[in-house]
């Protein structure tokens, strides 16, 4: 049995990967979803997770430095993509010009201080020279899942979410979206690490191996990740 702390943005693909992993290897995987910063606090205080699939590079690196992750087990399992999305069809154009026209009241993003997708969204707005203009309309989600909920419920007319949240089976689900070019923000490298409680756990080692395999990577690509 392997207990996995999974970044919220990776929820959908990880459920599929875990199902395939269990079918292919016979190991059991228990998944917990949440914000990477919260997992960091829990892991440093003895949470019994075996594997961390973080939304960033910094958290696993920090855990390794502090001796909470097994050295030399870190690797980038996926590269995230950012999308500006609205539940309304036709609101978001494919160039992101809607950000300049400003025909909306609230724009949702994950809290840039704590969430990698929020930090990337902030970089995009800064690069477009719109950060100061748009800031009064920001609503911040605690993590990317909550940010998605703000937009999906229509309370925020649009927002920056993970491509994986609006993409299933290689297609955009509904509404309107602008796939933000990767040149507008630093790459969202999502790193995995084996945590101390997982040392010597065969299922944990097998899962990390499985994440590098073709089956897992094709699931990730279908959800819009670079893998």
């Amino acid at each position, binding site marked *: 049995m392997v207990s996995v702390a999974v970044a919220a943005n990776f929820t959908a693909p990880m459920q599929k990967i875990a199902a395939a992993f269990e079918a292919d290897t016979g190991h059991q995987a228990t998944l917990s979803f949440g*914000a990477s*910063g*919260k997992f*960091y*606090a829990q892991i440093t205080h003895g949470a019994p997770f075996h594997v961390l699939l973080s939304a960033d590079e910094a958290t696993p690196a920090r855990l390794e430095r502090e001796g909470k992750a097994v050295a030399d087990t870190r690797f980038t399992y996926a590269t995230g993509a950012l999308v500006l999305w609205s539940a309304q069809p036709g609101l978001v154009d494919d160039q992101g010009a809607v950000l300049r026209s400003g025909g909306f*009241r*609230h724009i*949702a993003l994950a*809290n840039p*201080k*704590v969430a990698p997708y929020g930090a990337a969204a902030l970089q995009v707005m800064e690069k477009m020279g719109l950060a100061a203009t748009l800031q009064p309309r*920001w*609503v*911040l*989600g*605690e993590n990317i899942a*909550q940010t998605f*909920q*703000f937009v999906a*419920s*229509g*309370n*925020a007319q649009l927002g920056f979410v993970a491509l994986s949240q609006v993409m299933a089976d290689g297609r955009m689900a509904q509404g309107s979206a602008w796939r933000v070019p990767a040149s507008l923000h630093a790459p969202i490298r999502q790193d995995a690490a084996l945590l101390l409680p997982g040392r010597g756990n065969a299922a944990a080692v097998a899962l990390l191996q499985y994440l590098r395999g073709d089956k897992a990577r094709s699931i990730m690509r279908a959800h819009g990740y670079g893998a």
Partner: protein
Amino acid sequence: MPFTSADLAAIGLTLRLAATTMVLLLVLCTPLAWWLAHTRSRWRGPVSAVVALPLVLPPTVIGFYLLITMGPSGPLGQFTQWLGLGTLPFTFWGLVVGSLIYSLPFAVQPLQHAFEAIGQRPLEAAATLGAGPLDRFFTVAVPLARPGFITAAILSFAHTVGEFGVVLMLGGNIPGVTRVVSVQIYDHVEALEYTQAHWLAGGMVVFSFVVLLGLNLTRRHAAASVVR
């Protein structure tokens, strides 16, 4: 200075939210508690149960349903848009609506118990002396129920200060508008700013202790004055 300006803004906002909620709850819950204390209607049971729901429902359930009902396609959201107010999530008044529901039982129940404890006899005595219903209510029932009002005020204020899940779901974490102390603490913890988190979290513990101690003292004082 242990608190940043963002912390102070969160503290000010939290106190404003708690005070607004407390005043509105006392106004709205007094007739409701009076009705619950005196009615023989078959609706008494269901209404009491609805009032107590926020005690047992997870705040995420309340927040989630409010986000949907107050959203642009929800019934409450359509109503506020029809009034020209826009939608309520991500606004101070949206949090007030959430807090009214979240803290409702903490205002209704002490008032209801206080009204029940008065019983019918003082009111009947006042009636035989010629006092009308409103007169009886304001000059007999309200003064006798004073400990209930104090308890309801303190508990609804303190419980709103301690609100987190509903605000997180409805607020959107906007500085000065919806970023209350509990959310600010959560942000500090997630950003690994543990020193800042400690100052605010410790402040919450001290505040809550003082409130509950004060509540205890007023209750003993009230009990003593009844004996006298």
